[in-house]
């Protein structure tokens, strides 16, 4: 498999990246680990005349845990997330999700920034970040701006990031309560047939807050406000979980593909969400 020819750049700083982006517009793309982009280039489904490798830019590989917010640089890999003891303590859902992404080799290369910026509905981190109400920081010629994960995804591969901007990191409010990332996939390395990210806060046996997002069940990740609301004020019993599943099914819009027809995907989405809620509640 031979991708189309491209000019390769490995700038040493962000100013260098931004000037190449400014010069070439959407003919240029940045690459972190490359494990989404390179396969697409090999298949010639993506053509990138000007490829900007971010590996030498620096300053985007840190995980910082403050009192109320976690900051993860865009170049932090899935492997880094799994390996970070402080993060496993502060936000265990990140580790649980990262362990379900691809395989060990891919996790050494695949980055948080690439996973959230790519805009592929199959990526796991976008839904996870919506569940956690994360904010993405992008930088462009006019400086930095922050975009909530819940407002970032417009359609498959279409996001609120402009072509001449680079996503540099994510900020996550320190998660509270029980958590679960549940994913159904056909095989190691496959994208989800359905996946659910759930955070639940329990007080005195009652659910006081719940956040639910679904992956690969629409052309964007789906944050289901209604599904979370269906759990609040309940003891998260069978009836409440059924109500959350019904609310979630009203928010997703899966399409038929080699992972199955629409009815099957809706069925799996329900099962996966139920399992995620039950596990998150048991940990709350």
């Amino acid at each position, binding site marked *: 498999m031979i*991708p189309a020819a491209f*000019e*390769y750049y490995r700038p040493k700083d962000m100013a260098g990246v931004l000037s190449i982006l400014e010069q070439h517009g959407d003919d240029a793309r940045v690459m972190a680990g490359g*494990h989404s982009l390179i*396969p697409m280039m090999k298949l010639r489904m993506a053509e990138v005349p000007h490829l900007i490798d971010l*590996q030498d830019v620096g300053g985007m590989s840190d995980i910082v845990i403050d009192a109320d917010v976690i900051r993860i640089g865009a170049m932090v890999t899935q*492997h880094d997330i799994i390996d970070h003891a402080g993060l496993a303590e502060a936000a265990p859902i990140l580790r649980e999700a990262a362990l379900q992404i691809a395989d060990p*080799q891919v996790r*050494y290369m695949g980055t948080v920034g690439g996973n959230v910026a790519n805009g592929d509905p199959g990526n796991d981190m976008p839904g996870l970040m919506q569940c956690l109400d994360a904010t993405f920081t992008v930088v462009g010629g006019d400086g930095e701006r922050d975009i909530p994960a819940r407002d970032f995804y417009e359609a498959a591969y279409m996001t609120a990031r402009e072509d001449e901007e680079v996503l540099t990191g994510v900020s996550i409010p320190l998660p509270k309560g029980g958590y679960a990332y549940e994913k159904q996939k056909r095989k*190691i390395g496959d994208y989800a047939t359905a996946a659910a990210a759930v955070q639940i806060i329990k007080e005195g046996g009652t659910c006081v807050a719940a956040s639910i997002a679904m992956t690969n069940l629409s052309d964007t990740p789906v944050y289901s406000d209604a599904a979370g609301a269906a759990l609040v004020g309940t003891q998260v019993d069978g009836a409440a979980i059924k109500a959350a599943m019904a609310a979630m099914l009203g928010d997703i819009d899966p399409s038929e593909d080699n992972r199955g027809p629409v009815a099957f995907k809706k069925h799996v989405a329900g099962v996966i969400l139920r399992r995620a809620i039950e596990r998150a509640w048991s940990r709350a």
Partner: protein
Amino acid sequence: MSKKQHYTITVNGKEEEFLAEPRELLIYTLRERLNITGPHIGCETSHCGACTVTIDGKSVKSCTMFVAQADGKDITTIEGIGGPDDLHPLQAAFKEHHGLQCGYCTPGMITRAMKLLEENPTPTEEEIRFGMAGNICRCTGYQNIVKSIQAAAVEMNAAKEAAE
């Protein structure tokens, strides 16, 4: 449009300099340009792991890296792990425990297992299966691959202890 560029990579301790187009996939650089044919091309789509090499301490599928990204890197392939006259304990264990049938996946398996044992010298069977999940054996000989890695771990830990 894309001209050949000058690259320098270190493979198994030997510095290699050559001209190549940036789009060349690292597996082709290794196999066809440098005649390092241990890493194999199985699926060429980042799934099978036959092309696994170690780059700067990470297990990487060399079909999913452009040579331009590898410029300046330190790469280890199966050839750098051991040869016919000086088998690495992993290679010896794969031989002893029938960890290979057709042998096609073996270079990737052993290269990946090296890194796995470096990070976790005493893995459980489950940890081996999880840590080797990026490598596919087309003969489905997984039982003996797991056994081989377990045996190699025991051997390597004993050797390490004896050396201390």
